[in-house]
């Protein structure tokens, strides 16, 4: 395939491109919280929550090839750890994040134990069970003294008062007064930092030796075991890490909304499915996939949220959706998801990789820098024996 430009990986042009992308991102990150509308800031913060959750799932599914339909439970562990510690024991919200991280890690490792023996569709169902049981567990009467039962918990976030109007980092206060609407950019930044942290952890794992053994597990666990990858420990740690990272956006949502209940969508199986489809739409097995997926998802849902009255729907779409009073976002995203599986099982990132070659070809460095681009959860159709 011919391409307009050819650049060398690691060369000046490649660095220039990276810098340009980074500059655009940085500009957006500064512009939105300072100049953007309140609703835009809110939407972005929600998107950050989904990004972090989808990223954590991606480490497990996209790289280790282990399916989980129970990540909503880990998200919920974050939410409820923060809620309980803030309201019952008076902790400062941010201090609960490490606790949530560790707790979810432990639960994740525990869940990975049966997963060592149970495989494929059965594992999918076991994790689905986890997602299903978690909200019920929270609502369990025996635990309502702690979790508030079906009613949930209130005042789980910061209480900014006249005397205590802001959050200072070692006496430094970059945000000013955080009461009322002013608090939105603050959560925007917290969300962005959580995404960054989760991204860096994922990147660190993926680019490390562990990351390579992960891909080995994903592509063929029996073969990997024969080659000397320590399966139980590697799988356990990855499962735990993935769970732990998913708890962070969970905590954020408790801090940001100030109220938690077990039936919140993201804490139920519906949440697990949301994380999964976001990850897949963006591109499983790529670090940027979940980030792009979450942005697209949030954009579609937000854009079409008001399309319940024919007048509010752009003329182009009116004939398709004007007949119903239900917002079409969910349906549109589902259609996009299905179509994407037809053209690019590796999601938007996969689609970009397939077609960006025409615009610009990046020649890899000669040795030792092969990038991971194939997802084994989607093995090529032609893996029949070529022996003849």
């Amino acid at each position, binding site marked *: 395939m011919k391409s307009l430009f050819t650049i060398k990986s690691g060369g000046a042009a490649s660095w220039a491109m990276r810098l340009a992308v980074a500059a655009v991102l940085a500009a957006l990150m500064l512009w939105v919280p300072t100049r953007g509308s309140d609703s835009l800031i809110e939407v972005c913060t929600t998107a950050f929550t989904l990004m972090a959750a989808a990223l954590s799932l991606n480490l497990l599914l996209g790289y280790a090839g282990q399916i989980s339909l129970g990540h909503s439970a880990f998200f919920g562990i974050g939410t409820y750890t923060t809620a309980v510690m803030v309201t019952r024991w008076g902790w400062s919200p941010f201090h609960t994040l490490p606790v949530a991280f560790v707790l979810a890690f432990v639960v994740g490792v525990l869940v990975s134990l049966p997963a060592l023996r149970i495989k494929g569709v059965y594992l999918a169902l076991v994790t689905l069970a986890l997602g299903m049981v978690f909200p019920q567990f929270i609502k369990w009467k025996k635990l309502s003294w702690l979790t508030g039962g079906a009613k949930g918990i209130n005042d789980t976030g910061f209480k900014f008062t006249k005397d205590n109007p802001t959050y200072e980092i070692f006496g430094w206060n970059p945000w000013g007064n955080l009461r009322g609407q002013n608090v939105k950019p603050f959560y925007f930044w917290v969300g962005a930092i959580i995404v960054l942290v989760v991204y860096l952890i994922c990147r660190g794992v993926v680019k490390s030796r562990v990351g390579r053994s992960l891909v080995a597990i994903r592509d063929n666990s029996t073969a990997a075991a024969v080659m000397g990858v320590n399966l139980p420990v590697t799988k356990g740690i990855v499962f735990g890490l993935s769970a732990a990272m998913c708890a962070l956006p969970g905590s954020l949502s408790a801090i940001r909304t100030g109220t938690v209940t077990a039936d919140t969508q993201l804490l139920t199986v519906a949440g697990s499915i949301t994380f999964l489809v976001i990850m897949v739409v963006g591109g499983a097995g790529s670090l940027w996939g979940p980030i792009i997926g979450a942005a697209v998802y949030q954009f579609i849902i937000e854009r079409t949220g008001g399309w319940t009255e024919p007048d509010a729907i752009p003329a182009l779409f009116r004939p398709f959706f004007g007949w119903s009073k239900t917002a079409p976002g969910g349906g549109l995203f589902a259609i996009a998801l299905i179509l994407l599986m037809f053209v690019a099982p590796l999601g938007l990132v996969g689609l970009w990789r397939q077609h960006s070659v025409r615009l610009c070809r990046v020649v890899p460095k000669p040795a030792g820098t092969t990038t991971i681009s194939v997802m084994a959860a989607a093995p090529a159709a032609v893996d029949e024996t070529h*022996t003849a």
Partner: protein
Amino acid sequence: MTLLRTRGLTAGYGPVTVLHGLDLEVAEGEIVVILGANGAGKTTTMRAISGTIPRAGSVEFEGHDVHKSAPDAIVRAGIAQVPQGRGTFPELSVEDNLKVGAFVRRDGGGKIGADALRWFEVFPRLAERRSQRAGSLSGGEQQMLAIARALMSRPKLLLCDEPSMGLAPLITQELFQVLERLNKEEGLSVLLVEQNANLAMHMADRVYLLETGRIVASGSAAELSADDSIRKAYLGF
């Protein structure tokens, strides 16, 4: 009379072409052996004839062009294949395996049952295990079952893909004796793919030598083994 004739048979997997225009013939009542090393295209030839992979070129069976037919039509026309690596139905009982073999037949259950009994006579060890799951049989028994299953469709031509693979020499010999007997007594034509040149040459009427998807030599077994260069390069004895 020619039973099977391929002209320019070309096939492969996705972007990879494995067969580059094979011209093969099998006459009625013949045992024809295709010899070749790993990767020569032997299994691909079998798949291309039975229609389980996309193919180009012509395939004629009893004078009818079948190169566009679906696998089930080819079985109905009278070609049965014993695939490489047994190809039985491990979760089904031995008896059900035979019944599945007769899937395309439209004649009544009585005749099918009678045929099954006949193959149980030919392969007495299968009879002992008729209600066991096929997956629990030994390698040799599974190969016998796979052959019996293929015969249940009453084929005119039997395609056998490396029946000796993974079997003890004695069992392989036994299998080949059965094939020879069927050929002599019933007039069953056989197209056999083998790596094991020594054994297969004995019963072959004619032999094709296959190398990287092309026929490099053909003739009667005697002719080929008479040619010193061929014998040394391909037959290894």
